[in-house]
């Protein structure tokens, strides 16, 4: 168990800059998720930590020791690959044993057929077999040890890959989109299992995914990456409710956060479409800003009393919730989505409706996409007034 410090990592592939001065401190025993759209550099960062890729500049420290000059073998990390990367010609048991055999047996003891007769080999092999069985039992794949990976289902292969990573008790686990090859149902199940595994092992996990739901459900902290940079590092709750950048707000959460362009008025309020939202933006008057709120942080209301008004464009009934799409104003804005509980009321398409934002302060983002403060003092009064 060890903390991992990523310090000013840059990576260029030819002329393209894949990572730009990434700093990230991962605490010992933490479940850290790197999340972002494909091509944001998260996998490259993971491979640099693993030692599979060499950074252009910057440094990685594991347990306060710089590892930049170490081969992957000497960094004492384990990795679970998206494709599992099991050796197809070896049985499940042999696959799990590889990391141990490579480290504990000497070259001549690994000779095919003859190796086992070399002095000392037998004892080591026996110890390895016992450890492999223990790990397999823990992952519930003990009965599969003699099979080849080709005979296993996706979920079983996933476990074997986990087993191969766990058997060595590494300082940290690196996981590169380990669930993306599984079907949706199994993915949800494995999420829970991996999270439990982390709790049981207590080891540092670095988990890479493009799926924000995976990031939200499993992590201690999330690092949201975009265009080769880390935008925000925080707990799932903070990233969701308190994003520091519009891109983070838009990436995290499903359905997506609602965003409306607005202009700051001289009195600090916001002009949105044809209405005025009475909040106090910490930005100079006349500045274009973005107003954002999550679907569950708004309420449908009487159009006469609400901050925003529009017509219902589409209704999605999810059973537990209903998503009401409201088109506001005449401009080509995508409809705003409001999540409501099913309360027996039927929403008609084309119906005039208002959106009430008073239950929770909306998020404001400046011209550069960074978060701006919102004063709440007058908001309540005016909204209800």
């Amino acid at each position, binding site marked *: 168990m060890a903390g991992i410090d990523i310090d000013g990592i840059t990576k260029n592939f030819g002329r393209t800059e894949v990572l730009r001065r990434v700093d990230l401190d991962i605490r010992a025993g933490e479940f850290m998720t790197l999340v972002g759209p494909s091509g944001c550099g998260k996998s490259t960062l993971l491979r640099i930590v693993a030692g599979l*890729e060499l950074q252009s500049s910057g440094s990685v420290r594991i347990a306060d020791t710089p590892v930049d000059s170490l*081969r992957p073998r000497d960094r004492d990390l384990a990795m679970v690959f998206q494709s599992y990367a099991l050796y197809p010609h070896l049985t499940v048991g042999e696959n799990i044993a590889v990391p141990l055999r490579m480290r504990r047996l000497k070259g001549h003891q690994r000779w095919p057929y003859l190796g086992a007769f070399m002095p000392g080999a037998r004892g080591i092999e026996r110890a390895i077999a016992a450890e492999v069985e223990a790990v397999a039992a823990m992952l519930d794949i003990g009965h599969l040890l003699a099979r080849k990976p080709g005979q296993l289902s996706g979920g079983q292969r996933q476990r074997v890959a986990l087993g191969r990573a766990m058997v060595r008790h590494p300082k940290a686990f690196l996981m590169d989109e380990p669930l993306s090859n599984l079907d949706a149902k199994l993915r949800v199940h494995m999420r829970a299992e991996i999270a439990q595994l982390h709790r049981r092992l207590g080891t540092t996990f670095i988990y890479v995914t493009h799926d924000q739901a995976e990031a939200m459900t499993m992590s201690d902290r999330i690092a949201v990456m975009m265009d080769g940079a880390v935008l925000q590092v925080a707990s799932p709750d903070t990233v969701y409710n308190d994003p520091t950048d519009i891109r983070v707000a838009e990436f995290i959460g499903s359905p997506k956060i609602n965003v409306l362009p607005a202009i700051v008025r001289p009195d600090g309020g916001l002009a949105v479409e044809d209405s005025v939202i009475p909040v106090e933006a910490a930005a100079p008057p006349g500045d274009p800003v973005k107003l954002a709120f999550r679907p569950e942080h708004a309420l449908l209301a009487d159009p006469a009393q609400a901050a925003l008004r529009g017509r219902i464009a589409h209704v999605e009934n999810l059973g537990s919730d209903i998503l009401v799409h409201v088109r506001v104003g005449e401009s080509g804005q995508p409809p705003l989505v409001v999540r409501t509980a099913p309360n027996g009321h039927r929403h008609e398409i084309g119906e005039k409706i208002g959106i009430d934002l008073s239950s929770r302060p909306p998020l404001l983002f400046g011209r550069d996409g960074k978060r701006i403060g919102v004063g709440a003092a007058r908001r309540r009064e005016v909204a209800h007034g």
Partner: protein
Amino acid sequence: MSARPTLGFAILRHALLLLGAAFMLAPFVWMISTSLKPSTEIFLDHVRLWPDQLAVVENYTAAFTKAPLLWFLLNGVIVTISIFALQVLVALPCAYALSKLRFKGKQALFAVVLLCLLIPPHAISVPLFLLFHQIGILDSYAALVVPFIISVFGIFLMRQFFMTVPDDLIDAARMDGISEFGIVWRVMLPTAIPALTAFGIFSVVAHWNDYFWPLIVINSEHLLTPPLGVAAFRNQEAGTDFGPLMAAATIVIAPLVIAFLMAQRRFIEGIALTGMK
């Protein structure tokens, strides 16, 4: 990559590969070098790569005049092109039927194709020779071409390729009122160009270089294919005139080698098909 190759390894790699390359290229280099030399410089007791006195014109003129080399090359072109064209003409319709049409006996026919795939061409040379003798077409273009116009490998290859063509494409053609014959040539042929190119290279290279069968059936000088031609040239000039002989060898291998150097990837693909056969 994780394995960071050291400079030492890079040097070792190139050293070994260059050593192998030297062995591979030696005959080509020596052939071209000799084809440039006058005979006084060919018969030396030491290695001389580049002649003091160039005899390019003499040697290559001799190669073209002492034997009808140009005629041999033309024969090669006529034979390989005819073989390939006829192979396509026969194989493509059959491959289409085997992959896309439903008819009784389809499985059996395909089984026969697979069995015929096992027959090495050398193994049927005796009866084919007798047959051609019987019908009197030995020592003719027909004798060079006819045995190869049925390419079961071509049928097999095109059938495998056609299996990957979506049925919708064919149904759309049928809706447009194109007959099954029309579909073969107007729909399937254009889609099959990549596979046909590979097969074409495979076929042309194989028959341009073929020696065994032409050797058996051809006697007349005017029908010699390039390999036979260059062999005959050697027999006439045995041991005396290496300059023109090497010039002739250079000329015979030149068309394919130049084509190969210009379209390496396609050629390698095409030749690698031999492995499937």
